[in-house]
């Protein structure tokens, strides 16, 4: 897609660096294998095969990512410049892959019940057919390739060096998620409603993203980020096309990361979706979305930063405040964490706005830290169960600390990490982004950030008080243990603790990743 005029038939064969794209290709390839398994393997063996394919695919992709990271100074473009393979991208991709592996532990969980996903998506909730499928012990093993496709999209999204690739990645990541949202085993009406809402709003936002892309194409004659940047510095930023394009593009990106005023989908979708999938969305999708935001604003629009900064300031402030304030009155655990996730999106934006190396590295660190804590927290939620599935309502969590001190204590630890209490990764992350924002001259943002952290601390601590200082309910929820979920919780807690107590190695890693900046 070079701006050179080409006659029909003149399109050259693109050369593709398969080695540098391997992590993405492995994940997408595993997804295709999953589809074949679904088509060819007998029903009884599908679960095992699918889990195997998924885990092997993710692990292999992660290993390859590591190899790319340490092999040489990764600062390349691949596939004719459509994909960037550089320090920040590899950091983000590695984070996504590990978090996806952890989420996979929850998705593949079948100790609590046969699967966290519906037995047969096509059956109507409450119908005899649904009961039959439940009794028959059916499981919907298509979820594994769907998850892998989504993860593949997430891997491309922050790596995409042109807006078309980014759009395709956006859809590859979103479409499976829309479907997966609607596949909860329990409370299926809520789940389906979440899927519809997510899908309609997601499609709506991608229309904005795409229209923004069109405007920028009109402005620069190319959708390549580097060429947009070049065009901005050449022509100046006065073009209405450019400003409209940036605005609409931002809408699409900010929607994905759930920044206000585009946050409305998040609480509903997080609450309605199967918790295992919420864990995936709250961690991996957020990481990918912020990665995309970073790339667009650091590579494509950096020269225009005096124009978009005021807008982003407003968005960040609104996001932090809305997330923190509305979370206070929530009564559902998942919904509360969704608002908390919105607030954290705001904190991440303060790092993005800094547009310096410190901002980049602190945002990367924050992403990793927050991702692990989030997966751990949602993993705990899958363990606390009532007769009707997970105990979502906060009142059911009363006194849990007295009956299950370990589980409640771990959850409390995650909440403290969300609140940013010292000795947790949350503190280090917040400290890093606020420091970067301050260095970037965004003092008011930091003040709002600290204030909303304080507000947010209230509802985190409220849950802790509820768990530890209330009398347990007579018919309170039970805690269902399983090795896989417990592993996810343990890894989350461990990383949260390590990044809080000895954050230096991880910070150093994020710094060295950020030092190379995004490739153009």
């Amino acid at each position, binding site marked *: 897609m070079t701006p050179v005029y080409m006659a029909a038939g003149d399109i050259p064969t693109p050369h593709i660096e398969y080695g540098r794209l391997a992590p993405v290709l492995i994940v997408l390839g595993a997804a295709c294998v999953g589809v074949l398994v679904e088509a060819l393997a007998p029903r009884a063996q599908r679960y095992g095969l699918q889990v195997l394919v998924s885990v092997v695919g993710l692990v292999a992709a992660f290993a390859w990512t590591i190899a790319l990271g340490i092999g040489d100074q990764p600062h390349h473009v691949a596939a004719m410049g459509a994909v960037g393979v550089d320090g920040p991208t590899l950091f983000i991709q590695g984070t996504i892959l590990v978090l996806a592996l952890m989420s996979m532990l929850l998705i593949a969980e079948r100790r609590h019940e046969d699967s966290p996903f519906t037995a047969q998506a096509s059956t109507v909730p409450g119908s005899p057919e649904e009961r039959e499928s439940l009794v028959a012990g059916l499981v919907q093993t298509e979820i594994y390739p769907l998850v892998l496709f989504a993860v593949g999209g997430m891997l491309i999204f922050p790596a995409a060096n042109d807006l078309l690739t980014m759009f395709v990645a956006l859809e590859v990541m979103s479409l499976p998620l829309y479907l997966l949202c609607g596949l909860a085993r329990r409370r299926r009406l809520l789940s389906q409603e979440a899927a519809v809402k997510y899908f309609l709003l997601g499609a*709506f936002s991608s229309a904005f993203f795409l229209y923004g*892309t*069109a405007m920028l194409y009109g402005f620069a*004659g190319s*959708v390549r980020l580097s060429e947009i940047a070049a065009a901005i510095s050449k022509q100046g930023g006065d073009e209405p096309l450019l400003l409209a394009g940036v605005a609409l593009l931002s809408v699409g990106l900010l929607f994905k990361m759930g920044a206000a005023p585009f946050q409305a989908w998040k609480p509903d979708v997080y609450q309605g979706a199967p918790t295992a999938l919420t864990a995936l969305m709250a961690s991996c999708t957020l990481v990918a979305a912020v990665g995309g935001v970073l790339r667009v604003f650091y590579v494509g629009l950096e020269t225009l930063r005096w124009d978009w900064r005021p807008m982003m300031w407003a968005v960040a402030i609104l996001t932090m405040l809305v997330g923190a304030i509305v979370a206070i009155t929530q009564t559902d655990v998942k919904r509360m964490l969704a608002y908390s996730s919105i607030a954290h999106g705001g904190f991440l934006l303060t790092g993005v706005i800094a547009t310096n190396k410190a901002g980049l590295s602190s945002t990367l660190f924050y992403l990793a830290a927050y991702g692990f804590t989030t997966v751990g927290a949602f993993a705990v939620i899958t363990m606390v169960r009532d007769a009707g599935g997970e105990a979502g309502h906060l009142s059911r969590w009363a006194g849990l600390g007295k009956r299950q001190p370990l589980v409640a204590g771990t959850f409390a630890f995650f909440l403290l990490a969300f609140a940013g209490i010292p000795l947790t990764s949350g503190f280090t992350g917040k400290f890093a982004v606020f420091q970067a924002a301050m260095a970037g001259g965004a003092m008011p943002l930091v003040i709002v950030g600290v204030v909303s952290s304080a507000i947010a601390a209230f509802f985190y601590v409220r849950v802790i008080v509820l768990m530890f200082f209330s009398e347990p309910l007579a018919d309170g929820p039970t805690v269902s243990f399983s090795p896989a979920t417990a592993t996810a919780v343990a890894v989350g807690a461990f990383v949260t603790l390590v990044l809080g107590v000895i954050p230096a190695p991880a910070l150093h890693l994020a710094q060295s990743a950020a030092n190379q900046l995004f490739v153009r």
Partner: protein
Amino acid sequence: MTGHYLVLSAILFTIGGIGVLIRRNAIVVFMCVELMLNATNLAFVSFARMHGSLDGQIIAFFVMVVAAAEVVVGLAIIMTIFRSRKSSSVDDANLLKY
């Protein structure tokens, strides 16, 4: 010349956007989103013409493919909720709120 097409594209995009806001039937809402995508395609093609490059046209094809994939997923989702609720109105599905 291309200016007219762009204005048309903007009008279509706005119609689509407003349609999403005011129509209740999920299918129609979705069709309005498709209308917005088509408006985008028109813009791409116009710009391709303006810049004298093929890129915009190629992008339009990509968008079509993506839109087709979106239709598949979207219709599936809308079908399931229709079967559960016997209604395709997006306003009926509001259990998740506040």
